[in-house]
């Protein structure tokens, strides 16, 4: 019940294309959903986060879509760039009690081809 399932495991997109990564969760106590970007040799860095009181959140080229009834959320990267090539993790936590204690998905390795 604590798992966060993430797909796909890897993704190759052409420059300018849309990258889409999907996640699903089971634990209904989760109410904070951050996405992290990780470059090789670095720690995860928060990209964007959403709470379930909204269905979508956009920051620049990055958009989170959230479907509370389906317990699913996704990251869309518009106009993908080679510099976006990294590993992306979705995560979930009980934001009202311990937002920093996140359950991570397995990660998606994104490669954006020039």
């Amino acid at each position, binding site marked *: 019940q604590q798992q966060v399932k993430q797909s796909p495991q890897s993704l190759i997109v052409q420059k300018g294309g849309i990258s889409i990564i999907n996640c699903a969760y089971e634990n209904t106590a989760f109410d904070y959903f951050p996405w992290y970007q990780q470059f090789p040799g670095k720690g995860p860095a*928060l990209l964007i986060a959403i709470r379930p009181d909204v269905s979508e959140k956009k920051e620049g080229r990055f958009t989170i879509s959230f479907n509370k009834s389906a317990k699913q959320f996704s990251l869309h990267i518009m106009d993908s760039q080679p510099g976006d090539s990294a590993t992306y993790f979705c995560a979930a936590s009980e934001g009202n009690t311990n*937002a920093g204690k996140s359950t991570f*998905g397995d990660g998606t390795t994104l490669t954006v081809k020039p």
Partner: protein
Amino acid sequence: EPEVTQTPSHQVTQMGQEVILRCVPISNHLYFYWYRQILGQKVEFLVSFYNNEISEKSEIFDDQFSVERPDGSNFTLKIRSTKLEDSAMYFCASSEGRTYTEAFFGQGTRLTVV
């Protein structure tokens, strides 16, 4: 820009030895975390720490592990008797608050147990 710093970046240790991984959280942050990432696997929560005590810990965080904030700036993770399966990247993180706030991750310490 404030950041979480971890030392050393890489530690090699003999099985059965004790290791201490060190972290300097962001100075005004009050909540501290350790995560680990076994090579090629997901990032896993180990422990959260607030007000000089553990607030939550995972099943991974058994009696071999301990955390400490020995002074006003450092936050340490000790593994008493390392096992081969403790080989992983260990990330320290900190956050300003407990609810719906971003956790900032350090760059990690790669622990190799031989």
